[in-house]
């Protein structure tokens, strides 16, 4: 017994020391790192896994062909190899900090943010070190003041504003439409409750009624909340929800006879990550009328060059193990942005002298109209103070079990820039 214990402890100690002493591989060839921190554990686990797969595939593609995308002529410098470097932060801020320091020490020039807790932990560090980062989270905290984290879909408040614009454009009645929040009960869902958002809704002619919360993942249908909305005569419900929240909500709406095509007319709209394509696939015709702003295109929409590219990459690099999750597209976008920033920076500063600051100033800030093959609503443009890459927001609605684009609206920049 005692021996087993000793052996266990000894092996643990050896493992630990080995892990710390593992040499940082000597860099014989010219290598640049992309990727960054991931949250493979926690609520964003599946999204993060798909993003990671996409980054890996895209890097393989660039390394093999030196092309940046089938629709682009520019080449990636031939003598430089890209490598994916990532760590799992389990969505824990302290872990993200040490991971960030590790990756930075290993020579990583770009960063990545995998969720709101990580964003709050890292955004000031990134700014201090002048490192640019792509981000999967899109809360309003990025905009006060805008620093060096770049998003590739609009932040939640702007997305909801575009839904409000769209709904108002189609409003036929003489009275003011009534709007309420029906949002997830967590930091993400509550991030829309800012005075600027309410002011905008009232400015464009809505009457604001109130807020109802649904648990991020409800364990019972939100009958109570929906009854409340119906009682107050709400016409448009806006909120930030992920699919596990929005699917039961819409299911319950249909059962209670609430919805755009139901006896009681009410439209329910959410921003990405409540992607309409995912929603439609899971709910079918039950989900008709659901509106999502800024969501990605369905993964089987092969007419779109970007989606075709995603599909081809998967055919080539992961045959038989295809990733069907929609965040694969997000991963391609993130990889494209990171690689593009590195490429642009290398035009100004030689590889040997490249610093994170160069990549931020000569890379990220110089990305203008980066074509994404229509994966994002518009080509991506970044600059100092401009961290929302897209200029327009696409609005999709589920109709007859399919995601259909119903409009495109400009980004309103609701959150005042301080």
């Amino acid at each position, binding site marked *: 017994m005692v021996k087993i214990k000793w052996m266990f402890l000894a092996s643990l100690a050896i493992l630990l020391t080995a892990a710390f002493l593992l040499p940082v591989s000597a860099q014989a060839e010219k290598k640049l790192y992309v990727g960054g921190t991931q949250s493979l*554990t*926690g*609520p964003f*686990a*599946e999204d993060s*896994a798909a993003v990671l797969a996409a980054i890996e595939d895209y890097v393989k593609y660039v390394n093999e062909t030196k092309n940046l995308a089938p629709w682009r002529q520019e080449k990636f410098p031939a003598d430089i190899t890209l490598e994916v470097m990532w760590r799992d932060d389990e969505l824990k801020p302290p872990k993200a900090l040490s991971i960030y320091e590790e990756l930075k020490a290993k020579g990583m020039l770009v960063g990545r943010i995998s969720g709101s807790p990580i964003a709050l932990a890292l955004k000031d560090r990134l700014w201090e070190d002048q490192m640019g980062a792509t981000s999967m989270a899109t809360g309003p905290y990025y905009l006060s003041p805008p620093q060096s984290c770049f998003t590739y879909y609009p932040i939640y408040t702007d997305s909801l504003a575009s839904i409000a614009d769209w709904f108002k454009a189609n409003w036929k009645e003489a009275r003011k439409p009534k709007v309420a929040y029906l949002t997830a*009960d967590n930091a993400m869902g*509550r991030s829309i409750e800012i005075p600027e958002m309410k002011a905008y809704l009232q400015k464009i002619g809505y009457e604001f009624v*109130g*807020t*109802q*919360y649904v*648990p*991020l*993942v*409800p*364990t*019972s*249908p939100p*009958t*109570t909340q929906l*009854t*409340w909305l119906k*009682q107050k005569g709400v016409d448009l419900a806006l909120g930030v929800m*992920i*699919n*596990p*929240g929005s*699917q*039961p909500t819409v*299911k*319950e709406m249909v*059962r*209670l006879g609430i919805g755009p095509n139901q006896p009681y007319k009410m439209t329910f709209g959410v921003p990405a990550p409540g992607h309409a394509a995912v929603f439609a696939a*899971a*709910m079918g015709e*039950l989900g008709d009328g659901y509106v999502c702003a800024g969501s990605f295109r369905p993964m089987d929409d092969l007419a779109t060059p970007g989606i075709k590219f995603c599909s081809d990459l998967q055919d080539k690099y992961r045959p038989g193990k295809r990733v069907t*999750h929609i965040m694969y597209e997000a991963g391609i976008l993130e990889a494209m942005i990171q690689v593009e920033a590195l490429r642009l920076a290398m035009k100004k500063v030689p590889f040997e002298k490249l610093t994170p600051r160069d990549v931020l100033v000569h890379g990220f800030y110089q990305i203008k109209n980066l074509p994404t093959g229509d994966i994002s609503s518009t080509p991506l443009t970044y600059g100092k103070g401009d961290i929302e890459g897209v200029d327009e927001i696409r609005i999709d609605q589920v109709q007859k079990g399919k995601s259909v684009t119903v409009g495109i609206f400009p980004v309103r920049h609701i959150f005042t820039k301080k």
Partner: protein
Amino acid sequence: MTFFLQLVVTGFAQGMVYALIAIGFVIILKCSEVFNIAQGHFVLIGGYLGYTFLVPFGLPIWAALGMAIATAIVMGLIIERLILRPLLGEPVLAVIMVTIALATILGGLATLLWGAEYKAYHGLLPTITMKVGEISIPSESLIGLIVSIICVVLLMLLFRYTKIGLAMRATAEDLQVVQSVGIRATTVYAVSWVIACVVGVIGGILLGGVSGANMDLANVGLKAFAVVLLGGVNSIGGAIFAGIILGMLENVAAGYLDPLLPGGGLAQVFPFLVMIIVLIFRPHGLFGLARIERV
């Protein structure tokens, strides 16, 4: 008034599912004095098992339920033998910590097997739509109610008329007496874990039908603790009663107070408020045995 009744009805059905999960907890506690923090994770596994058997395997609902229950039985036996048996007679903290560790491992297994993904199986469970006047009863909750009642009745029968049921009740009463009359306490423990697993998995399938299987399903276990404390930790009847009470209170409180609060979201924290109040004023709950200790 309609609004109030709607809240009560929704709460009632919701409370029934809480009660079902709480029963698993109470059974383990009664028989082996183990406070099983992992009960919520049985629910999580149940949700995913429901998905696996219904969607990729494409089994009909009854077969899927049977398969899930079979898996739960195996799971219960393994957990009891490997993790809980070595800790028989250890202090409370060790046992609780081991169930917490068990919860983490179950969470890890769910991540490993199902990639922590959100798996929905809408419309595969049978639905019943019922409307009383203006008040509509959510079909999932109604199904939950029916299944919960069936489970409770089955358990009552088990405890009243079978030998193992009697042995379990006797063990709950006095371990030493039970051992001296030749009942194997370990068998009783194993059966209690199996029952807890089965009940948890059924709860998981019911909840999964509502919102789909997701890692957050495990959090419902925390609500079950509040139910257990309110009802009294060693009373099955108390768990059912408290489950319903808590479900209703939670809904009514959230319905009326949420719009008044700056941040809302009362339903999330309500069980814990109840918990604290119960612990301060009536630690043995509504129906629990008051252990008298004058210190």
